């Protein structure tokens, strides 16, 4: 039950886009059609689901204050947490590269669908944000980290899918010229975020 709660929380209440604005750049750039939005969204779920648990283990056994105790009790005073940014981003960049190669080798169809989006993801704020929030939440077990990673990925996917569907329709509406394109997308995202706030306080 705890996991369902965490999962739902990370999708709806702490939605990466509507609550924290993470991954807005690709969210705005790749949401012109539903098809590409689905591709990028799937890639984000995939990469978040992999990198958050890996970074959790890294944080648990290497970075947090006293984490090196498992090596030798004398290392208990060592605090490497200042290295977390560079470690996380290195893990993310290399994982993205690795995932790209594995998918290309074993699932060419999936690669065809995700292909061009995978390299983009290394610099998607939502991915690094997932790891940093994971560190801030100080989970107890790796399964919680997996749930959180997948949940925030699904939340991001839902958000980009929704805005892409709306943008496909809004192309036919009569929007004031200076507001066309980017401006109206911002305002719609704001309104959607207000809608998502109604999920606040839900607990399962």
């Amino acid at each position, binding site marked *: 039950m705890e996991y369902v709660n965490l999962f739902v929380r990370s999708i709806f209440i702490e939605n990466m886009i509507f609550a924290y604005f993470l991954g807005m750049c690709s969210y705005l750039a790749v949401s012109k059609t539903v098809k590409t939005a689905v591709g990028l969204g799937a890639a984000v779920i995939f990469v978040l689901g992999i990198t958050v648990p890996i970074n959790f283990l890294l944080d648990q056994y290497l970075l947090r204050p006293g984490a090196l105790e498992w090596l030798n009790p004398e290392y208990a005073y060592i605090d490497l947490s200042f290295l977390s940014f560079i470690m996380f*981003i290195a893990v993310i960049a290399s994982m993205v*590269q690795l995932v790209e190669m594995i998918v290309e080798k074993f699932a060419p169809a999936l690669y065809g669908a995700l292909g061009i989006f995978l390299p983009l993801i290394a610099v998607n704020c939502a991915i690094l944000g997932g790891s940093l929030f994971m560190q801030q939440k100080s989970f107890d077990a790796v399964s919680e980290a997996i749930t959180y990673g997948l949940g925030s990925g699904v939340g991001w996917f839902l958000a980009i899918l929704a805005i892409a569907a709306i943008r496909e329709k809004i192309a036919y509406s009569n929007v004031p010229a200076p507001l066309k394109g980017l401006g109206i997308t*911002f305002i719609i995202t704001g309104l959607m975020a207000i809608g998502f706030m109604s999920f606040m306080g839900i607990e399962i």
Partner: protein
Amino acid sequence: MAKEISATSEEKEAKKKEMILFLSNTAEREHFLSKNNRKLLSDPLNDNNPITVQVLGICSALAITVQLEPAIVMALAVTAVMAFSNMIVSILRNLIPNRIRIIVQLIIVASLVILVDQVLKAYAYDVSKQLSVFVGLIITNCIIMGRLEAFALGNGVYKSFLDGIGNAAGYGIILIIVAFFRELLGSGKLFGFEVLGHKAATMAESTGLYSFGYENNGLMLLSPMALIIVGILIWVQRARNRKLIEQN
């Protein structure tokens, strides 16, 4: 004898070449703040603003605009990271292999962000607590990667430095405008000072605007309003600067 002559003529040739090189160098060398260099600084403020025109760097920007102070600190942090990462990548631009350039850039930016984070923790602990993960998210701020890819990899050191400062200023200005409106309308304060008067429990005890029954707009403190304010800013900017309007 003939050999000697040819040697001296070769020498002369070499000297001539050197002279030409020297002259062309000085001819190409621009004034410290020439028109082109000033354009690098001023362009991102309006015509080529990173947020409202290039659509880069919105990611971590808007969550920290509830108050002016963290917004300004964030703008300064981004300026420092951008100017120096642009400079470093520009110095190394001929050494970085093309295939792994993204990882190299990420590592350079990440090291700079660690420096900024440690400085903030040491000298502005409260603000650094408020910014929480968003300092770390400067690493993946698209505007930094975008400028590294688009500018620093192809331009000289000084120009890249200026480009970094210009773009960070364009980003910071949007951040500060949004934070100004959100703090003023949301909590009636600027930098934590009650500029609209003091709000007490009853109208009679309140001062300033609040004594006329003015109320703060609590919605402004919530994250969605940041998006809507940026939307309105884009509207205003494009209405004044018609050439930025999108066609489709």
